[in-house]
């Protein structure tokens, strides 16, 4: 586990966010405790962890909205504590349970934010119209935000990031409180951002969604990053194997041949013609070749992708949380 942490802490050349021993103390308790991570340009990075683990605090430190107690962090090459305006000009932030001025319309809310960004009148209205179209709020653009549902507010918050043309989007629990349909739509919007080259940092409790959209995740616990990496990497670390492949095939010595495939952990013989193997990658193609090479008849080949849910549950059960604090 610590080995994984070390490889991730190694400096990447294309890192847009780099944290080194980043620490936040309230009084004597370290709420964020010497964490290290790098986020590459264009990556979708997920922060996971139980309530009070320190995700929001980490985000606030990245934005210069709360003081850093120790350590360093650089965002797009700037120090958020010393050059907060440079950072905030380039980074969009969607706070968890985002709020708007209820008596103003969607457009007015965005216009205020855009003014604070320093955009001129023409540029402002052009970008706002485009952003509202993208988040599909154009038809309610002139309605007061008081009438908006949770999902609409969340999308309006994303529109603000789009108006800003942020290079990094930091989303704190963007899908909490959304219904499944709204969640899917929101995740699509996040993917669109990624496709445009925006780096996305998001925190969430909704594991399967995080899994669907994140390239890498960091599991927070009591202010520390316990493990970090892609979902496949984590499942190897936590579950011992990433993929479970089931093969149904006739033929002699298939189990032996399957076991010889590089990356396969173990092969279980479920029935005479059914085998289950665990591997650290998707080995279906190799398994098919192995069966064919043994002159076997391949009838079925299925794979269970590792689920973040299983990793999370397994990880936090296996190592019971010590001193997890309540959320602020």
């Amino acid at each position: 586990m610590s080995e994984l942490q070390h490889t991730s802490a190694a400096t990447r050349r294309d890192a847009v966010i780099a944290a080194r021993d980043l620490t936040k103390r309230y009084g004597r308790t370290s709420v964020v405790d010497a964490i290290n991570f790098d986020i590459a340009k264009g990556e979708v990075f997920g922060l996971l962890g139980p309530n009070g683990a320190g995700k929001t605090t980490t985000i606030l430190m990245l934005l210069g909205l709360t003081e850093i107690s120790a350590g360093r962090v650089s965002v797009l090459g700037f120090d958020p504590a010393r050059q907060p305006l440079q950072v905030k000009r380039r980074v969009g932030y969607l706070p968890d349970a985002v709020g708007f001025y209820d008596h103003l319309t969607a457009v007015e809310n965005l216009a205020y934010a855009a003014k604070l960004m320093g955009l001129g009148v023409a540029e402002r209205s052009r970008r706002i119209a485009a952003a509202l179209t993208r988040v599909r709020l154009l038809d309610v653009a002139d309605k007061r935000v008081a009438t908006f549902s949770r999902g609409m507010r969340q999308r309006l918050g994303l529109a603000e990031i789009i108006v800003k043309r942020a290079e990094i989007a930091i989303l704190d629990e963007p899908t909490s409180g959304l219904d499944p349909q709204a969640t899917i739509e929101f995740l699509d919007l996040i993917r669109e951002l990624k496709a445009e080259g925006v780096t996305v940092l998001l925190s969430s409790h909704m594991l399967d969604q995080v899994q669907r959209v994140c390239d890498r995740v960091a599991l927070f616990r009591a202010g520390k990053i316990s493990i970090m990496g892609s979902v496949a990497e984590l499942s190897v670390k936590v579950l011992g194997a990433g993929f479970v492949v089931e093969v149904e095939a006739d033929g002699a010595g298939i189990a032996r041949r399957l076991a010889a495939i590089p990356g396969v952990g173990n092969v279980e013989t479920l029935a005479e013609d059914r085998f289950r193997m665990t591997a650290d990658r998707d080995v279906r193609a190799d398994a098919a070749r192995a069966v064919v090479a043994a002159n076997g008849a391949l009838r079925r080949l299925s794979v269970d992708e590792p689920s973040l849910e299983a990793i999370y549950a397994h990880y936090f059960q296996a190592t019971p949380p010590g001193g997890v604090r309540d959320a602020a």
Partner: protein
Amino acid sequence: MRREGSAFQGVGAVFVKELSDNISSVRMLMLELLIVLTAMAALYEAITALRQNTAEDPFLLLRLFTVSQAPLPSFVAILGFLIPLMAIGLGFDLINSEHNRRTLSRILAQPIYRDALLLGKYLAGLATITISLTALWLLVIGLGLIFLGVPPGGEEIARSLAFLVIAVFYAGVWLSLAMLLSIVFRSPATAALVALGIWLFLTVLWPMLAPAIAQAIVPPDPRFAALGLDTPGTAIWTQLLQRFSPNDLFGEAMLAVLSPTTRTLGPVFLDQIRGAVMGAPLPFGQSVMIAWPQTVGLIACTIVLFVAGYVLFQRQEVRA
């Protein structure tokens, strides 16, 4: 550590938004109605009183501000009472409402410093009050023209403008107090209650307490009492203590500016008025000099309260 960029970036945007919020708010409408109605009543009384006098007074217009006809206090006294209410009404939820609406972290994630938010909001509140007071001032001048029928002289206009400026500074004190409380207390209701408590204490209780405390410090001398006079030591202490209240500073400054015959605001010693022509008005410049320390006191009080709020807000957590 030098910060990059200007602390004032975004002040304009915040100012414009807050000003338009203030002006269109129902709360502001109520406060203005309250002030205009009470002020009109006081003015009506003053006009009736003044029309019965012959128009010999060279400062008839200024008398409109200061004449009081029982049971109503003078226009200036009413403003001294209501301006704090208006400032508190505008300021008690400046910052905590941003917390409660959860807009604060979103706004502070824009490329501005916290200074800009605070300053923009403060200036917008002050501008709102200035607009209302200016309207009220025009109303007084207009009514004076119509009902008293004497065009105001240059000095009267100058003196009444000085009144306007000092009234805005006075509002500034209460606005910065209200803003400080809106930073300290997360709940707007608490902030409003505390602000109103302080207001009541300083306008109602303190004028009664100050003499009592002064008498405890310097017990009245029976020899002065026998002559029906105040003991000088006690009187000095009373005034000193009363000056801790911005209302008192405002009242004194108004007295100096609007009553041109005012020569001094403290107890008078004989050697101070040697050679003075009693009852003769002072030139405008001299009256301003008399009101100057009080005005500076109001400004200093504003600055202290604003800086206290500023420091607290800088270190405050943005998360709700």
